[in-house]
């Protein structure tokens, strides 16, 4: 894999976000609340996933004006989402100097065959995955950070858990394989053999591996971290709850002390109601975001 200095800087920023919480925000005011609660970065978008799910229609990149206001309002890195394959939206986000671009299934895909060629950009990209093959294909396209897809806007952690477990257990299987078997795995996953070999050698993804899609409580964050996530994204979970600042702080604390149940307990005390959750089985299959 190409490991030039640009790649080092892209992965380097992801390294700095580890152990932290990245929060979805739709206004500068929300971005301030997120930063004051200890967010390590904010994700600018037009509507949170729960609203996209409810309202339907085409979900696009956030307005550049709102992204600019958010950049003004906070000192933490500002990420923004572009539609899958919409390299022109990505170019606009790069020109706007956002710090990370999420090529996201939460927005309506713009291209059903191609993802953005992320090597062409100086701005780093994060992409979602449901399994290891998807993660490694995105990395080979230039993604410098991977997150689970989960099921965004559902308030239900089950899909993120499934995706993280699939990725981690597949990596453990790779570690026991010989070169011939790794080559066959690479063919089956449609991923470059070098990236597969590197993953087997490292025993982890070659880029930071974060959790996203359905995290709504401090215990959800702790669960994902214990399953191997190195940081968490919270979308609708904060600003769709009854007390966003308190919930944001609590999830930050639980992410730091994810392996200490008493600390997660303490973090969970002062909270109001979480966002409403959806049973994944009640969502019609064509409305599931993770298959995009």
């Amino acid at each position, binding site marked *: 894999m190409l490991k030039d*200095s640009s790649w*080092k*800087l892209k992965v*380097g*920023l992801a*390294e*700095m*976000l*580890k*152990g*932290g919480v990245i929060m979805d925000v739709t206004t500068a005011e929300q971005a301030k609340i997120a*930063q*004051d*609660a*200890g*967010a*390590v*970065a904010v994700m600018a978008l037009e509507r949170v996933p729960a609203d996209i799910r409810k309202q339907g229609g085409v979900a696009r990149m956030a307005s550049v004006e709102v992204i600019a206001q958010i950049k003004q309002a906070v*000192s*933490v*890195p500002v990420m923004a989402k572009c539609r899958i394959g919409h390299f022109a939206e990505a170019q606009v986000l*790069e020109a706007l*100097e956002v*710090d*990370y671009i999420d090529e996201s299934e939460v927005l309506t895909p713009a291209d059903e065959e191609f993802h953005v060629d992320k090597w062409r950009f*100086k*701005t*780093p990209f994060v992409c979602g995955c449901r399994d290891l093959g998807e993660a490694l294909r995105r990395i080979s396209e230039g993604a410098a950070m991977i997150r689970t897809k989960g099921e965004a806007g559902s308030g239900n952690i089950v899909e993120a858990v499934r995706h993280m477990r699939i990725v981690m257990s597949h990596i453990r299987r790779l570690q026991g394989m010989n070169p011939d078997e790794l080559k066959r795995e690479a063919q089956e996953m449609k991923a470059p053999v070098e990236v597969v070999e590197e993953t087997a050698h490292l025993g982890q993804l070659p880029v930071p591996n974060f959790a996203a899609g359905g995290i709504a409580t401090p215990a959800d964050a702790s669960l994902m971290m214990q399953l191997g996530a*190195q940081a968490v994204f919270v979308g609708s979970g904060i600003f769709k709850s009854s007390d966003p600042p308190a919930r944001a*702080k609590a999830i*930050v*604390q639980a992410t*730091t*002390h994810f392996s*200490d149940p008493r600390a997660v307990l303490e973090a969970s005390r002062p909270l109001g109601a979480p966002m409403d959750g959806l049973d994944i089985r009640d969502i019609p299959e064509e409305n599931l975001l993770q298959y995009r």
Partner: protein
Amino acid sequence: MSKQTVGVLALQGDFGLHCRMIERLDARPSLVRTVENLREVDRLIIPGGESTAIQLLIDTFNLREPLLEFGRRRPVWGTCAGLIVLSDSVDDPAIHPLKLIDISAARNAYGRQIDSFIDEGTACIHAVTQPFQMVFIRAPKIVSLGSHVTPIAHCRGEVVGAMQRNVLVTAFHPELTDNPAFHEFFLELDAVSL
């Protein structure tokens, strides 16, 4: 000699990369998240990350006083966000630094991620000046140094590393390179006798 235990503040940031470098040098890394963890280490690294988040978590988990006490004597090293946390003053009123080294820092002074860069600088370790590959990610700048602070690293004509007795700061990330020289140097730093 038994292995020395090097604490790495693990509230948030790239603490894992520091741990890997410490292991390479045959010392024992130990993650520090609580006051009890801090009591078990001989020296401490405050890693890169987001200084707003790290500071908030220091105060939330009542680590400010224990860190000040620790930093008065024992070797402490801050990289990037860690530099901001250790400095005497910061250009951002939201940050209340620990004031363990007499420098003033400016946050994100090189710009946004698109302005992050890798360049060769020079580091003066044990009175020998050597070239060092330096990784700057949304890095801070040291805008002024007190008279008791020694500059120990330079890049693009600016001071990017400094030291005052037991406290070391670097605006760049040696933990993101393969060169363990800075970690080696930090492991040899002496505590200060009061």
